[in-house]
Each structure stands twice: as structure tokens, then as C-alpha cells.
């Protein structure tokens, strides 16, 4: 600690250079925090997904509807505790850019199917009593400023009403939330019965089913049994537990971890040259000053530790600022990827500070090596 004023003074010897280097390191660690934050956030979402819930969709693709009649047959499969369903309603509010993630379902089946979602019995009853009722997520309500009692007109890009209108007006009767605040709550749920009766086509079909099972370890086996029920029929199904399904979807994008590590690796490699050059210049300019320290009895190791200390303070402070910015920005980033409520994991912050320490040490090694070889007599004589 007593060397800190020396380290600090050394850092601010060339103020502009230090600030520019600091800013470069800050930007690099904002990127580090955001990119690793996103992958960590995705991992968190995947891990939160249930492996005791199966997702059943058409084998052809997700846009191919499944007949409602399949529900009873899925319910009859041994190991299946309850079945729910969902019908996609592509909709927007006022402007096409205000997309709303809306879905039609049987709300009474929802509680058994999604125990991680907090819905009051009052809201479920209100949905049962209000045909055009809507149950919306807390995040969506907050974002749009909507509250219970509001009548919200949505325009569907897919579904036309029987009277020829594209606008559907719903009355908000309840607001749901995730139990631990980590489940995204940005959906707009409506009564399937009302929606199915009102739409002009696709009646009696759903987009997908959910089945809650009693033994997650048997999820693959149960999925196979369900798919077996509809094999060789016009409505073949593809069943997966939610976690595997999401993993598969993410894998379709590519190896995210590899992309992120490759980009961050390149950034850190460049950073190494930048900070290394700064440290090298800084030490080169101060050879006589470092020689004075040696004159007064500072050992070579002490001078080396001063140089390492400067690099560690510079990179550590900049990384802390960068990761702090990434942390502050993370709620909006997570919301943008549909993971509202998540925050930058401490593991990412810890590994960021660790990487900063490694960058600092590697970039300080060449100048530190040089200080060790300073000849006091030559340095003081300006040779």
C-alpha cells in the first residue's frame, strides 16, 4: 500500500496517454461483459427451462397446426400428468413495429402446466368470466403502461375475425409474473375458446401442446410414445422436453460460445499490444527516475513490482469500469433477448477481472524485464 502513491503518480505521468489507454480497455471490457453476459444469460434461460415439461409441435414445422383432438390422446399417455396448449397469435399494437407476443390458451390448464408463473386465482376466474379477457405479463404491463380494466386493440397479421375485421379488442383482467423474477413476463394471453370461435380459419387447431410429466428422466421415452401415437398420420408430431428444444434452437444459430470466445480473444489480443506499448513507452521515458529509485535502495524486484502494479491498477480499474457499464446495461440487453429480470452473473465479472489481471501481467512483463536490467550508473549518465 505504501507504494501506491508511486504507482499512481507513474500512471498519471502522461495524463492523455493514460486516459486513452484506459478508455480502450474500458470499451474492451464492456464488450467482454456484454458478450459473455448474453451467453451466460442464454445458459441461464436454458437451465431454467423444465425437463419435466414436453413441447409437442408438428413434425413438419412450427407453423403447421395440430388438431385439438390430439389433446385427449396425449393426456392418455402413461407418465403424462397434464396437458396444455398454445395457439400463436401474431399481433401488434397500433403500429407494426409494436409487436406483441400474444397467444391463445386454456388459462385453467396454465397453472398446472407452468408452476413457475405466478397467477392469482382471481385472474383465472376473471378470464373464465370474460370471453375477450387478457392476462398479461408484468414486464409487458410495465413497458406499455397497461393495467387491469384497460381495453387493448390488437391487430393480427394472421387471423381475421368472422366479421372481416383484423382488429381484436381485449380487456385486461389480470397481470401475471414470474415467481423469482427471472422468468420473462412479456406475454399477452387470451382465451382460446373465444379466439377459436372468432377466427375465420384454422378452427379446432393449436400451434403446440405442452405435457407435464411425472418422471423427467423418462422424458425421451414419453416423447417417443407421444410421437408414436401420431406416426404415419397427417398430423405427425415432434416432441422434446423444453430444455432440449431450446438447446437445439440455440445450436441452430451456431456455436455461440465459440463465436464469443473468438471475438473476445481477438479483442484481448489487440488490447495486449495496446497496453504493452503504453507500458513500454511509460517505462522507457522513466528509466532515469527508476534508476533514482534503485539508487535509493529499491531492489530490481521492487522496481519490477512497481511496473506490474501500474499495469494492474490501469487494467483493473478500466476493467472494473467496463464491467460496471456492462452490468448497468445488462437489464435492457437481457430484456432485448427475451430474458428480462436476469442480470450479469458474478462469474462473468470475476472472470473479466481475472482476464484484466492476465492482460496487465503479460503487457507489463517486457518493460518490467527491462527495468530489471537498468544499470544505475548508465541510466543516471543518460546512456
Amino acid at each position, binding site marked *: 500500500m*505504501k507504494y501506491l*502513491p*508511486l504507482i499512481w503518480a507513474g500512471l498519471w*505521468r502522461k495524463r492523455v496517454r493514460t486516459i486513452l489507454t484506459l478508455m480502450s480497455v474500458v470499451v474492451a471490457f464492456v464488450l467482454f461483459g456484454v458478450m459473455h453476459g448474453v451467453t451466460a444469460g442464454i445458459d441461464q434461460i436454458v437451465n431454467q427451462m423444465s425437463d419435466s415439461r414436453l413441447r409437442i409441435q408438428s413434425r413438419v414445422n412450427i407453423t403447421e397446426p395440430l388438431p385439438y383432438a390430439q389433446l385427449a390422446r396425449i393426456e392418455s399417455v402413461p407418465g403424462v400428468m397434464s396437458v396444455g396448449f398454445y395457439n400463436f397469435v401474431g399481433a401488434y399494437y397500433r403500429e407494426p413495429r409494436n409487436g406483441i407476443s400474444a397467444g391463445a390458451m386454456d388459462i385453467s390448464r396454465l397453472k398446472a402446466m407452468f408452476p413457475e408463473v405466478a397467477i392469482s386465482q382471481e385472474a383465472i376466474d376473471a378470464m373464465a368470466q370474460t370471453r375477450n379477457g387478457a392476462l398479461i405479463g408484468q414486464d409487458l404491463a410495465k413497458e406499455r403502461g397497461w393495467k387491469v380494466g384497460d381495453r387493448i386493440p390488437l391487430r393480427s397479421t394472421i387471423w381475421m375475425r368472422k366479421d372481416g375485421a383484423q382488429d381484436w379488442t381485449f380487456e385486461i383482467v389480470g397481470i401475471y409474473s414470474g415467481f423469482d423474477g427471472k422468468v420473462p413476463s412479456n406475454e399477452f394471453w387470451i382465451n382460446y375458446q373465444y379466439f377459436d370461435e372468432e377466427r375465420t380459419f384454422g378452427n379446432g387447431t393449436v400451434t403446440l401442446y405442452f405435457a407435464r410429466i411425472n418422471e423427467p428422466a423418462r422424458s425421451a421415452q414419453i416423447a417417443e410414445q407421444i410421437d408414436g401415437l401420431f406416426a404415419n398420420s397427417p398430423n405427425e408430431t415432434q416432441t422434446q422436453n423444453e430444455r432440449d428444444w431450446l438447446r437445439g434452437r440455440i445450436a441452430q444459430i451456431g456455436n455461440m460460445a465459440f463465436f464469443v470466445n473468438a471475438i473476445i480473444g481477438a479483442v484481448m489480443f489487440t488490447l495486449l499490444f495496446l497496453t504493452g506499448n503504453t507500458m513500454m513507452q511509460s517505462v522507457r521515458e522513466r528509466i532515469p*527516475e527508476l534508476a*533514482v*529509485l534503485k539508487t*535509493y*535502495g529499491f531492489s*530490481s524486484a521492487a522496481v519490477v513490482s512497481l511496473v506490474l502494479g501500474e499495469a494492474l491498477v490501469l487494467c483493473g480499474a478500466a476493467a472494473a469500469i467496463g464491467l460496471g457499464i456492462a452490468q448497468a446495461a445488462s437489464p435492457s440487453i437481457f430484456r432485448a433477448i427475451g430474458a428480462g429480470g436476469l442480470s450479469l452473473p458474478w462469474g462473468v465479472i470475476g472472470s473479466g477481472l481475472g482476464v484484466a489481471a492476465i492482460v496487465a501481467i503479460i503487457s507489463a512483463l517486457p518493460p518490467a524485464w527491462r527495468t530489471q536490467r537498468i544499470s544505475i550508473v548508465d541510466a543516471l549518465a543518460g546512456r
Partner: protein
Amino acid sequence: MTALVSIKQVYKSYVRGKQRVEVLHGLDLEVEKGEFLALMGPSGSGKSTLLNLIGGLDRPDRGEITVAGQRIDQLSSGQLAKWRARHVGFVFQFYNLLPVLTAERNVEVPLLLTKLSSRERKRNVQAALELVGLADRAKHKPSELSGGQQQRVAIARALVADPTLLVCDEPTGDLDRETSESVLQLLELLNRDQGKTVVMVTHDPRAAGHASRRLYVDKGSLADAPLGVAA
């Protein structure tokens, strides 16, 4: 009086480019405890090399150097660094203060290697700055001080760890006559009142006049004073 510094048959050479230049040839010298010795001589005579050897900044090729009873020519670089921290205070021609530190932080530098607490360090720094008459400039950086003041700060830095020996290399070489005089008086005071042994290299006969003994170095050996220089 006892010899604080004893130099016997010391040889020192340097390699400059492809050439080996022998700077000191079998030099013998004794400096008594409490003495103020001025080393004079033309440029390249070897007086600064001799001073560097006495201060433990360099090691001889051959010969013995004993300071305060310790053979410093046999110490390793690390041991020599510790020895310097305990026994020697340095004053340079161009002050060599750290430009980014205030006067008090500059003076504190040698104390950072001691086990003194922050409070004790502060107290010693204050005392050293008072001794050189710059207590009121403690918070000033070198660029905010005149040459004479900077040299006084450098002297305070040399003194603060209470060294056995003060080694001064042309301490007035960069100062005007009036300022030189006050710096030399300060060195004289430290020698007389504090009992510090001072070894000073100078070109200036007037500066050498403040010393209790003057020696002339020429071509790597001690020589008789040339005409016109009082011995």
C-alpha cells in the same frame, strides 16, 4: 579519527563500444568519519566513477572498498541495494527528483523501504524539509520550485533516512553562484552540526573551498593539486 571509507588498490574499467577504457588504476583512498571531502579533477578523470564506487552504485573490477566496516565490493546487487538504503544519501547535479511527486513525496522515497509507519515517515519528512528550509513547499511539485529549492529537496531526500554517508555529484553544477553558496553552506552545516560524512565531486574550486579536505583525481589516480587550486 577512524576511516569511514577505505579504498585499496581499486581498478575500474568500462567497455564503451568496442573499447575497454580503464578509468581507475590501483587507487587508494581513506575518508575519515565526519569529514567533508571534495574530489576535484577534469572531466573523464574518474572522480564520478570513484564516487559511484564509494556510494555502492557500481562495483570495482579489482580492489577492496570498505565503508563503515563492511566490504561493499563483495556484496551482491541485492545486498548492495539494501546497503545503500541504510547507509548512503545521494545528491545529484540535476537533482533527479521524481517530477510527478510533490516535494514531501520525493523526500519520503527512501523511507518507503523502512519499516516506519506512515505517521513516522511523515514526521521524518517534515523534519528533513524543515532542516533544508522548505517545510512550506512540501506540497509543491519539482516544476513549481526553483533549481536551488529542488536541490534542497534532493538534499532533504538524501538526509531523511539518516545515512552514514552523503555522496554528492556536482551538487552545484546546475545552480547560479548565489544559490550554489546556500546549498554548499547547507552541506557544510550538515557536516558540522549533524556529523555527516560528505564526499563531493566538483569542478568548482569555490565549492571545494567549503570542504575540509580536497583531493585531485587525474587519469584514474589521486594526483597533486594543479597550480592555482588550493589543496
